[in-house]
């Protein structure tokens, strides 16, 4: 009867205060380090297994957010940071949030080429990811369409309504695609050709998603034929058994770095530094290389466990990270005015 039920509930309630504050050991966290990451959850699990072995003195706590969520969370918490460090998120985002970070040159920092780190140590990159199309061969076959091989192919009228792309305002991948196209078409020399190309491309786009992995995901499910996404995600979809092909456009692929930063006002700064040291160590890099097209430590080759070629076999656009970071707001603003009507949050 009800009495029994209330007894059960009462016991639940008596137990719950123990949980309410469980794990909230904020003060005595001498071993604790809190990490926000945008790396995929399954790879992170592998990396942390190694980290826990090699950093026995640390109690690692982590949350995984998408790049945009992570940035929003950092900004919202900036007066009272909850995390100690950021691990593996897009550099174009980090580079615009330097006021939130404490410069730190981790142990082994000197071994990394200068294009993979901020000169003052605000961010240090661990790997590179590359734009790629995730093409659903099953859907193309049904529609009687050939596999697109280049950016130029994507503007052909027969692909109208079959392409999904990320929004450059919210997605690191989206921004690297748009900025690499603009750079390719010579925007630095004052050419408007890049924008004209994007206009033509726009005619074929079904929607702009909020995240860079969504296009690959949607295309692999067969909801559209082509998702402009990035290599790892497209290869992952192929690996999961979807009828897709990973296409690196023949003109070139844009690329972007994923990097680490130490947060200003980190509560466990010393532990965070230990982790950041580990995060660019050779052992860590070797483990990253099983998931990445390229890692930033020279001498560690990509040995991807998924069907992904090493960066040396992919034609890359000439990126200019100084230009892309400095012009992000202007490019995104212009892009938004031109194309925003097809943007949705995803």
């Amino acid at each position, binding site marked *: *009867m*009800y009495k*029994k*039920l209330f007894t*059960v*509930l009462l016991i*639940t*309630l008596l137990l*719950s205060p123990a*949980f*309410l*504050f*469980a*794990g*909230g050991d*904020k003060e005595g966290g001498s071993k604790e380090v*809190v990490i926000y990451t945008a790396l995929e*959850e399954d790879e992170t*699990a592998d990396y942390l297994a190694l980290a826990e072995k090699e950093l026995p003195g640390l109690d690692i706590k982590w*949350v*995984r957010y998408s790049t*945009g*969520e992570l940035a*929003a*969370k950092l*900004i*919202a*918490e*900036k007066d*009272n940071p*909850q*995390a100690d460090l950021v691990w593996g998120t897009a550099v174009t985002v980090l580079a*615009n*949030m330097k*006021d939130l970070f404490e410069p730190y040159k981790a142990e082994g920092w000197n071994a990394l080429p200068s294009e993979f780190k901020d000169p003052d140590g605000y961010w240090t990159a661990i790997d590179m990811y590359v734009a790629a199309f995730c093409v659903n061969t099953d859907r193309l076959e049904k529609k009687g369409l050939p596999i697109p091989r280049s950016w130029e192919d994507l503007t052909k009228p027969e692909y109208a309504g079959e392409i999904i792309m990320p*929004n450059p*305002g919210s997605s690191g991948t989206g921004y690297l695609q748009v900025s690499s196209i603009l750079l390719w078409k010579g925007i630095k020399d004052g050419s408007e050709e890049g924008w004209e190309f994007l206009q033509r491309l726009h005619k074929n786009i*079904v*929607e702009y998603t*909020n*995240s860079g*992995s969504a296009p*690959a*995901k949607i295309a*692999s*499910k*067969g*909801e*559209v034929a082509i998702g402009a996404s990035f290599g790892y995600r497209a290869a992952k979809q192929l690996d*999961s*058994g*979807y*009828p897709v092909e990973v296409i690196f456009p023949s003109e070139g692929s844009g690329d972007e770095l994923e990097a680490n930063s130490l947060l200003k006002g980190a509560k466990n700064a010393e532990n965070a530094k230990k982790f950041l040291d580990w995060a660019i160590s050779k052992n860590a890099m070797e483990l990253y290389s099983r998931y990445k097209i390229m890692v930033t430590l020279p001498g560690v080759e990509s040995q991807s466990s998924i069907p992904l070629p090493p960066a040396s076999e992919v034609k890359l656009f000439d990126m200019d990270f100084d230009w892309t970071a400095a012009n992000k707001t202007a490019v*995104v603003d212009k892009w938004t005015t031109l194309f925003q*009507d*097809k*943007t*949705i*949050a*995803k």
Partner: protein
Amino acid sequence: MSTTSTGSLKDKRTIIEDKYIVYIIGGLIGLFLIIFLALPVLNILRLSLTEYIPEQHQFTGKLSFSNFTGYFQKPAMVQALLNSLWIALWTTLFTTVLAFIFAYGLTRTTIRWKKSLYYLAMIPLIAPSMLQAMALISLFGSNGLITAGLFNTDWNIYGPNGIIIAEVLYSFPHAMVILYTTLSAVDSRMDEAASSLGASGLTSFFKITIPTSRYGIFSAAALVFNLAITDFGNPIIIGRGYRVLSTEIYLQVIGMQRFDLGTTVAVILMVPSVIAFLLNYYFTKKSASLISSLANPEIPPSRKGKKIFFTAYSWTIAFILLSIVGVIIYKSFVKVWMYNWTPTLAHFNFRIPGGMGVLWTSLWISLTVGVFGAIFTMLNGYVIEKKNPFFAQPLYLLSIIPAAIPGLVMGLGYILIYNTRFLNLDDILYGMPLLIIINVIVSNFTLGTLSSITNMKNIDNSMDEAATSLGAGVTKTFLQVIFPLSRVSFMSNLIYYFMRSMVTVSAVLFLISPDVHLAAVSVINLEKDGKDGSSAAMSTLIMLVVVVVLVIFGLFTRKKKDVVVVE
């Protein structure tokens, strides 16, 4: 709670003392709502009127209306507002009508299997939000099982129609609960009287049944309107380029890190929501009390045609709701939807922070939410409806506002205020399960309070008066008269809160921390990572946990006939 040990005061008890007890309880609930509802929301309002420098991620503190003027200068943004209204209005119409007919069948006809139908109608409540859209796409997307698999057609469900269908499926049980309670509480003898005076079935339906239950209809409609206009899970998945305000907030804040525009859109979104509830409030006050303590006599046997119609109708609805969930369960056991139907358990091997432990975390948090949510809303309903102190109206208003606040906004409001040094609350709240518990209780305060008020209306004032005139004080009246009469309502609130807490995503998305990972949030993260199968598998496990807990609750309640939810 703090007022339950007043036995020794029996002789000295006066009406004045009772008044203070009511004041203290009502005041504490009010204070709770002010701190955890009004402050975060007002803070959002303040920030929407504050100048923001995007490059520095910094509000300057200067008053500025540029966010709002800027908003109405962008046609795409104005369109999002119109789109939201369009979606919400159609959803309100469809859901209210469909749910009313369903609830009518359960309360006013003698169809069989009522209890099963009632529980089947509740199915969407046990599913993580977004599940409707996920299932609809699996069935009716460009490469859906029915559209591509069965008919090989290019037609698909994306866009506004898809959102409306998903929202109807999502909001159905919410409306059904209110209408069911109303139709159970409204005196059906008036219908009988009308038909014995010669009115036809349809006449008495339109002249008696609908007018007498209009209070519940408006309540349900307002709630559905708000659910539809504030939901963001379904439009995100199925909208495809069709922009609504809730997804716009997400895009601005999460996508672009524009907290100024995000708070602005949040404020604009709150306008229609709050108007809907003010209308509801107005109609409620106008409507006379049509509820009596003797409202539930035996229903006379329904005519055969009526029975056939309501049986067919109810089971069709139940079947649709069941298949939405069924698709997701099925999906969690096949390798690759549409491409490889080999059965597999691989999707249940979760590689996420917290692992399987997220289910346990969700479970105990939700049980705690259930118990405290039910207690708070019941006390609240009692204070507002039965005791009517001078602050009853502001308290009522505070209590119904949560439904007008999108979960995402509430979560955003919480981190914007509880992570600062404000009252030093961050040390005990931020990143803690307690903040999530409070957030879920507050976010769902509306329906809890409304159903509690309806329940209190259902308890004849003569009960209260009789107890008082026999010398019982307010505490004793509550514990020995009101509470026993409200056990059904208490339990259904507890269950409602428990289920909401198990499946809520948007409100707590911002509140998960390295210490607290929740199952429903994992569903979204898995979906975002492209692990559809695992996402479906986690949804399946959440639903399983909810069903198991409900069955346990059911075992306790079944023994006594008068506490069963139906009949």
